[in-house]
């Protein structure tokens, strides 16, 4: 056979127990295979999961791989968790989009762009693990800087921040000018 069964099994198990996405390099090291072979096995796994009776899905994120459940079965898991999925509010989405495109960014900068206080929305995003504190900005008050998390990428089905849709070029230029007036 073309495929190495024990290594495929090990690969699946590793993805199952890993807390963070696993890179091909790390997998290659643990499995004692070369990177190409690991990619092949990952591809094989991905294919295996496509069958309808399978509830799992292989996700690529920030150059790493992770197991998750298929979106089709989400409603069952929400019953288990007794948590109907709550869509993010418009305010939260606005704050999130500002952080996503301008990260790292302070609450004051977000407030300025939105023209309104964003503390509640920001707290919700932090609580949901979509945004996190990544340090402090130099300058008066040393305000906290926020950035998006891996959970953010997972939530929106993005493989990395580069996958984010481009903002209109023109608007971005203006937006930068505004940003410079904030400092």
């Amino acid at each position, binding site marked *: 056979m073309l495929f190495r069964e024990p290594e495929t099994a090990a690969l699946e198990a590793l993805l*199952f*127990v*890993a*807390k963070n996405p696993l890179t091909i390099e790390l997998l290659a090291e643990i499995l004692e295979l070369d990177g190409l072979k690991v990619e092949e096995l990952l591809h094989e796994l991905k294919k295996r999961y496509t069958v309808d009776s399978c509830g799992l*899905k292989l*996700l690529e994120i920030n150059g790493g791989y*992770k*197991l*998750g*459940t*298929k*979106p*089709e079965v*989400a409603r069952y*898991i*929400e019953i288990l968790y007794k948590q109907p*999925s709550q*869509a*993010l509010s*418009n*305010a939260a*989405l*606005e704050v*999130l*989009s*500002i952080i*996503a*495109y301008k990260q790292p960014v302070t609450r004051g900068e977000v407030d300025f*762009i*939105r*023209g*309104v*206080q964003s503390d509640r929305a920001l707290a919700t995003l932090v609580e949901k693990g979509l945004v996190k504190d990544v340090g402090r900005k130099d300058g008066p008050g040393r305000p906290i800087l926020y950035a998006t998390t891996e959970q953010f990428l*997972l*939530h*929106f*089905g*993005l493989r990395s921040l580069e996958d984010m*849709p481009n*903002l*209109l070029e023109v*608007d*971005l230029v*203006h*937006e930068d*000018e*505004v*940003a410079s*007036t904030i400092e």
Partner: protein
Amino acid sequence: METENNIPLVELPAYQGPLDLLLTLIQQEKVDIYDIPIARIADQFVEAVRLLGPMDMEVTTEFLVLAAQLLYIKSRDLLPKPPKNDQDQVGEEDLRQELVERLLAYRTFKQAAQVLEGLETSSGRSYYREVDVEGLLADVEPEDPLKGIAFDDLWKAFCRVIERAEKGEEIQLVEPDEISIDVMLADVLRRVLLHPKGMRFGQLMRIGSRMEMVVSFLALLELLQSGKVRAEQLTLLSDIMIFPTKKAWEFTEEE
């Protein structure tokens, strides 16, 4: 152009903020964001804020600040234009320009938020396992923390401790006549403690200044008196040996 001064009924229940409201009004008027008819928009804005009714104070303040800004720009517009070189002219242009830029930036992110919302729906919701790393690690034998360390290494570490005590570096840094008996007491005791099999008297009296020797002798006498060390001499001319006693350990934790 001011024929219909009646305010269009704005049917948006909640604005994300004053910029959101302003943007909505501009969109309803179908005017260019770079060429806002300030007078009309300002009136509509003020009226809309009035209609928004009771909101919490902070939010209201933000709407009022922008309303005031709009009215200010409007009032400047209505005044006869001063000569070109007047500074106020520049000020008004700046205000307008800043407002447009803020609106554009806000609009960009508002659109981005809508894109994200679309992504949220289209990507579907995946769920992940909460991995219990502690539980997994419980089954994994931890690696020997002493890996690669021989008993000899441990002994060498102990020798370093002894060496440092012998050197008594803190004391040598101090001028001899400033040596306090307490510091010397600790120094002597530390060295005796490190030699449970006994230490020769001569060895304990380190070569140093006369003062240092005197003080360490005094320290030794005090240690003998308090029973923390004892001295032994096997024969009349043999070395006097100094040993730590059980009491030697009683110095502790009072620092």
